[in-house]
């Protein structure tokens, strides 16, 4: 007679799943690059087109790579958080100007403030694709060996910086 209880058991499991699902974001695409070496790039800098920058320049340091664009609305939200982070000196912040026009990017930084040690200019978005960027803003934390340890999809918030990013930076600095 227990076979009559099978439907209710399956239903309970289903409801449990849906309940958990209400707290998840179906649109978020987690990065498969966590724990893998940061993809190589060598791009011209935003401010000085003749100079280039590569992730290899940062080996031995813990650093943050923030993907931004002047046309991106949410980037405005997170910009004050980045300025604070840069000002605190806890970790160097570098920018990836994604699919933007050079003048627009420079003007935006001039108006909003520049938290980046430097920004690189990814006009075609190829480096973005290598890093699995699908929306702007996105932020990566890379360790001393050049391995990606954390990715934030969407704007950074003070809570995320305080509770997730900075503790991880401390941990990676010690290594």
């Amino acid at each position: 007679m227990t076979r009559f209880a099978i439907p209710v058991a399956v239903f309970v499991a289903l409801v449990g799943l849906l309940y958990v699902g209400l707290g998840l974001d179906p649109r978020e695409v987690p990065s498969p690059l966590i724990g893998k070496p940061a993809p190589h790039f060598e791009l011209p800098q935003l401010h000085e087109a003749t100079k280039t920058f590569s992730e290899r320049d940062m080996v031995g340091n813990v650093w943050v790579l923030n993907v931004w664009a002047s046309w991106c609305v949410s980037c405005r939200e997170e910009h004050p958080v980045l300025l604070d982070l840069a000002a605190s000196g806890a970790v160097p912040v570098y920018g990836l100007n994604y699919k933007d026009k050079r003048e627009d990017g420079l003007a935006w930084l001039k108006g909003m403030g520049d938290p980046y040690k430097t920004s690189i200019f990814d006009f075609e978005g190829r480096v973005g694709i290598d890093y699995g960027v699908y929306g702007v803003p996105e932020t990566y934390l890379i360790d001393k060996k050049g391995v990606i340890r954390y990715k934030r999809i969407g704007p950074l918030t003070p809570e995320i910086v305080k509770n997730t990013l900075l503790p991880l930076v401390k941990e990676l600095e010690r290594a």
Partner: protein
Amino acid sequence: MIPELGQIALALALCLALAQALLGLVGAARAQTVWMAATRPAARGQLAFVAIAFALLTYSFIANDFSVVYVESNSNSALPLHYRIAGVWGGHEGSMLLWILMLSVWTFGVTLFSRQLPLEMVARVLGVMGLVSTGFLLFVLFTSNPFLRRFPAAADGRDLNPLLQDPGMVMHPPMLYMGYVGFSIAFSFAVAALLSGRLDAAWARWSRPWTTAAWCFLTVGIALGSGWAYYELGWGGWWFWDPVENASFMPWLTGTALIHSLAVTEKRGAFRSWTVLLAILAFALSLLGTFLVRSGVLTSVHAFATDPTRGIFILALLVIVIGGSLLLYVWRAPKIGLGGSFEPLSRESFLLANNVIFASAAGSVLLGTLYPLALDASGLGKISVGPPYFETVFVPLMAPALFLMGVGPLARWKQASLPDLASRLRWALAAAVLAALALPFAMGRWGVMVALGLLLAAWVAASGAVQIWEKVRNAAGAASAWTRLSGVPRATWGMLLAHFGVAVFVVGVTMVKGYESEKDVRMEPGDTVEIGGYTFRFDGVRDVNGPNYVAGRAQIPVTRNGKPVTTLYPEKRIYRVQNQPMTEAAIDTGFTRDLYVSLGEAVSDSAWVVRVHHKPFIDWIWGGCLLMALGGALAASDRRYRLAAKRQPEHYAAAAAR
């Protein structure tokens, strides 16, 4: 004032729904005739007030009352009148009100056509439907109120989503909801039967026409949605296995299993507990569909604006309604009993094999739709499950069902003989094989999948022909063929027509998938492109003004062998208010093919990218669905359901009392 009256009407409807539920269920439990008799008026009152609320919301749309938040987000003063009316169900709140309206209409139908049922049964059925109504009315009043106001009133509205400004949009949700909600009747009958402890062939006979009618509406609703996507989205696709499409398909698959299972229960009293379970599952899947579309748990192009509060509420509703009925099932189903026996080879077992297949199909669609969520929830990663999966899995499941469709109706109840079936069907098989081997060549090339599809479709059609032939030949007496045929009950014609509709559908799908072709070309004015034997000439694009949009309209005359066929006018529109671009494809519909043209981008001052498609037999897809629905309508209107209404109610009351 009007919106406030609407809210009051909804609140009154809620009171009546609650009264209907309590009077019905408690009245039946305590055998209180007065209470039970009061459920009908309560149900009718509920419809009256829901209808008033709906009418008042419609009025707000027609009168452009932008002080109502919902009107502001879904309408605009430049929107043509018929779309202002359709906008009533263009957003979440209004579509929930439409759902409730449909529910009260069906409830009203039950109050009208239930004279021959024992009062206790009617009271319980209406009581359960009252509970469902109460749940939804609470949902609307507390989380999705369409009558919310804003002060100051907006100057103008944000316009109805351009994708929805279309005739198909006007009909698709009402038809779909009539189907979804109609399954609540089968559900209520099932729960009422479990509550009363009486589940016999008579119960199945009462349930059947309602279930079939709901199934008809759902078939039409899904077909409309598919047809609408085809001509509206500009891509020529007609089914995407999108979570919301699946959400409507699962109740349809389960509903199909249910109408076949009810046939067994009605004729032979067999497999009653399974039929009851199916009835609960069909409605459960309707509710699940509502949840999936409105909770934000799955991404979908159809999804309404989502809100976690709404999700929790619908989930709670699901738990109470379905969880409650499944618990009732655990308690009462073991007492139901077996019913008539039958051999492993018999019409009953063929129908039950149909059930296994359709239930597995529904389960597979559910599995594919929810699997990404399950993996994500368990932290096992994020995957996508799309058309490649569903097509790989669904087609092999349906092939045996199509085979059975040919054999089942010819098998005898209780005990069928394989040699007998084989001999009766040998010509049908021969016709099917011939069609599979020969017809593809008529289209230009032979392929395995096309042959398989045509084999199954021809098999179903040929076996239907065998059935008709046997009826003509076997009827007793020297009566003419016509008399013999008119003696065949409507339900049988309904079945034949619906099965034939399936064959037509399969032909459509097979031919389109096997032989469709498209060309993506860059055209200067005067250029031509040839596809499927038709020649398309691009005559340039001119600017046009619509009521609430501006468009670039291309003129493309089509000829075949030098003779003119038609002129097509695809457009690229920009709707002014939302600044949203839309591609309007131009389609020449034909019995054996569609010609489908859409504009790409302008690549220079005069040249445009144009995409032309040749789609053979694509309209057979929706034609087949229409035939299925007509077949269902015929079956639901069979004499035996209407004759029973003429019998004395006392006769049934006495029988029920025994």
